[in-house]
């Protein structure tokens, strides 16, 4: 509850701070301070301090799982602001609005991670989506940004419509919005309303996390949006929606798993395949990262596929690892003059720190041991093996992981082994230190994943 209310208040505060302070940097500092407050408030709630005593009438429930993810999302956004806030300031004129919108998105994520009623899920998804439509089109004079925003808006509202229909059908079959009551039904049967509603919900959520074959909006939107907002959308927002996805299917529809597990297995395989194979053919690192985010979503879908304790731990680690690494890579990418792979040639010579940290992030995305990305993938694969159904998916996934090495290592090869003069804007020591801190976090959690996972239980 702390996070939901505070993030909404902070969002409003930031909106008005734009009127009071004309200097973008002041607004930026307020936003960072606000994010810190938000993080502490959420950590306090994990420790059992509730700042607001509100009876949510069973519409929301605050579990350790949801709260832990909130902390991760807020922490990752803090990192994101620390490395990229200067670039947010550079996007346009109405700086304060961008920061305010980011707070509203976090508010939506906090709702999604705590929803107990399907109505709240819908509300949360909308609170997340609408600010994102605006952020996508933030670069008003850029045609591509406009196109991306319109495309995102149309596709997004379309999928929201599908979600509403799904909710209505499920409600019709069960006469309740409460997911706990729905999940309590051990034998859901073959009710046609229920199953078609479930299918529509599956499709709309798959749409939101850009799973194939509902991924077509992703590359264009990610490519068209200002890079700094792509970074936010592709990481924290996506992971947040995933948590909602997991909560919905794990709690509510687990008993009818045999009916949707195969569909989900096919969606997972298709997502892995399309994401990885298409990423191989990209010439721009930004587009490659867009497709890689689809590919990573494929691995995250394992958490839905195999709902057990391992997959819950896995999705937490995966979200954290993926957010840290991708935010870090994007922070470097924004500074590059040339977004193609060739643009990275010889970066290690001129910017050893940036090259080294980017390498660690890329290794983490590829799932190499000693990085958090390895344990993220480990938990996903182990949960699917423990589940035991559709083992072919596991083998398919590791083949795709091998393919992913190709495009991640292309960047490493360009930075370290090819000659060139990578053009990059000057960076501050503070920026580099934060990147080093994030890389250290990636490695530390890659050796001791328990540091995060213990909060799921204690």
């Amino acid at each position, binding site marked *: 509850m702390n996070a939901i209310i505070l993030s909404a208040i902070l969002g409003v505060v930031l909106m008005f701070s734009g009127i009071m302070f004309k200097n973008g940097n002041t607004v930026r500092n307020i936003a960072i301070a606000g994010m810190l407050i938000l993080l502490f408030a959420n950590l306090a709630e994990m420790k059992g301090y509730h700042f607001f005593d509100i009876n949510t009438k069973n519409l929301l429930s605050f579990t350790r799982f949801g709260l832990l993810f909130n902390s991760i999302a807020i922490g990752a956004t803090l990192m994101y602001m620390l490395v990229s806030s200067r670039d947010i300031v550079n996007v346009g004129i109405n700086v304060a609005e961008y920061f305010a919108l980011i707070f509203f998105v976090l508010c939506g994520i906090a709702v999604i991670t705590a929803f107990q009623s399907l109505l709240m899920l819908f509300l949360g998804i909308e609170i997340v989506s609408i600010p994102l439509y605006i952020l996508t089109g933030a670069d008003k004079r850029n045609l591509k940004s406009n196109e991306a925003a319109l495309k995102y808006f149309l596709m997004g509202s379309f999928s929201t419509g599908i979600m509403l229909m799904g909710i209505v059908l499920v409600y019709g079959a069960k006469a309740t919005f409460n997911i706990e009551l729905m999940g309590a039904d051990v034998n859901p049967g073959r009710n046609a309303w229920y199953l078609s509603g479930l299918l529509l919900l599956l499709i709309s959520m798959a749409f939101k996390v850009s799973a194939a074959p509902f991924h077509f909006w992703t590359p264009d939107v990610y490519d068209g949006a200002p890079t700094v907002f792509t970074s936010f959308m592709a990481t924290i927002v996506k992971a947040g929606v995933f948590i909602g996805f997991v909560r919905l299917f794990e709690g509510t529809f687990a008993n009818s798993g045999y009916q949707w597990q195969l569909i989900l297995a096919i969606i997972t395989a298709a997502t892995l395949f399309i994401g990885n194979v298409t990423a191989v053919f990209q010439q721009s690192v930004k587009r490659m990262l867009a497709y890689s985010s689809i590919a990573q979503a494929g691995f995250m879908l394992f958490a839905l596929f195999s709902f057990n304790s391992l997959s819950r731990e896995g999705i937490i680690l995966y979200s954290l690892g993926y957010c840290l690494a991708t935010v870090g890579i994007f922070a470097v990418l924004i500074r590059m003059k040339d977004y193609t792979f060739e643009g990275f040639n010889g970066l290690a010579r001129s910017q050893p720190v940036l090259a080294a940290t980017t390498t660690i992030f890329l290794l983490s995305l590829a799932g*190499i041991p000693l990085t958090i990305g390895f344990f993220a993938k480990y938990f996903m694969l182990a949960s699917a093996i423990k589940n035991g159904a559709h083992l072919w998916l596991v*083998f398919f996934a590791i083949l795709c992981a091998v393919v992913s*090495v190709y495009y991640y290592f292309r960047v490493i090869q360009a930075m370290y082994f090819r000659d060139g003069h990578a053009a990059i804007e000057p960076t501050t020591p503070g920026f580099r230190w934060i990147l080093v801190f994030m890389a250290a976090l990636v490695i530390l959690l890659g050796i001791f994943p328990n540091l995060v996972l213990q909060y799921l239980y204690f």
Partner: protein
Amino acid sequence: MVPVLLILIPLITGLALFAIRQENTAKTIAFLASILSLAVMLAGMSIWNDAAHLTYNEQWIGALNSRFHFDLDGMSQLLCLLTTFSFPLIIYGTWGNRYVDANRFFGLLMLSQAGLLGVFMSMDALLFYFFWELALIPLYFLCSRWGGERRIAVTFKFFVYTFLGSLFMLIAMIMLYFKAGNSFAWADFVKTAQTHASSGSSQELAIFLMLMLAFAIKMPLFPFHTWQPDTYEQTPNAGTMILSAIMAKMGVYGLLRWLVPVVPAATFQYGDNIATLAVVGMLYASFIAMQQDDLKRLVAYSSIAHIGLMILAIFVPSYSGLQGVMIQMFNHGINILGMWLVVNAIEQQFGTRKISELGGIAQKAPVLTILLVVVALANVSLPLTNAFIGEFMMFNGVLGSTASQYSVIYAVAAGLTIILGAVYTLRMIQRVFYGELNTLTMNTREVSGYVQVVLSIIVVAILVIGIYPKPLLTLTSDVSQQILNKMILK
């Protein structure tokens, strides 16, 4: 304590070296650290030779029931000795090689040592996998950064190949983990295999195939060897030495520790298939080696043939054969190290590795020639050299084994490769070191003192083990017996 020191010394040195800019300081520090590792290893085999010093077992990831469990039994001691013995020789033997950013080069070298030692000591599957990859990553950077012309594509192929194998191994390890009741401990894996007679189950076959793929790529076993000659050729010589002298043994070690005792039924059932591949690979590699003009490729193919014999002796097992594999792992490591040092010395001096462009070096560099000939004779396993002991025991083991009905055919076919080995090795010596001097080799100088020192150490080791192999054989006798007891034999 010894395992922790063995990992921390190279790890910390490796990381520290990234901060040291001067080339000679970096090189000296790397050399001293590798000597220190050797000293710790020797102490572990003599004064600290007790369980309290040689094992380390601490909680790592509670939720997964995975532990930092290192143990130095006979086989681990042998391979750690090989690793710690090779590194000072590699660093000192290539002392004259110049590298851009030398500190990073030696830093990566030390990091790969930490990974290798971890692989040989881990008794926990997840930990094993961790180090297995940790050994690979530094070498990937080493080869791609300082390698030959085609280095980027070649080492990438090498990386993808081994990464694919590793991922399959990871899946197999996870399956074994659930089978052993949520435990990664090696002892639990083995216990599960002994108590559940699950021979012929499709899951055990799947696990066998996946583990086999990972190890087969690493060793390499025909037909998964295609990355190897290219990689050896393109890698800087110090990297090639690590790859062939130590890293190839990771695969053999993996078979003995993580495959044979863990899935004994499948090993028994499908052992003949792997043994056949090994023999075919030996013959194939020997014939290809005869056609090579590049010294590095020649040694690379000869290495496939030698490793093939070890695989054969593992899958057509007997006590003598397994003991032969053990000692041969060590022998092959130092022998091939000697070969690479000679190749490196030649490349440094003449700037070429083409056999056809060289000739008559013996007239000008007699010391190098004598040392090389001893190493080369060990490579064709002449009596009195160390490789004779190992290969004799393996052939003896294969012939005497009751595990396969084809053991005689295997032994005869594999025996051919000894003759073929003599053909390509002696022909190489003849054409590079004897014959007429040409314009390139006219002004040959004797190799530098440090190369002579290192080669002499290797030659002494070759002869000592060749005459008195008992200490090494005693070291591994218990482990060989244990492995054999866990195997299913007719």
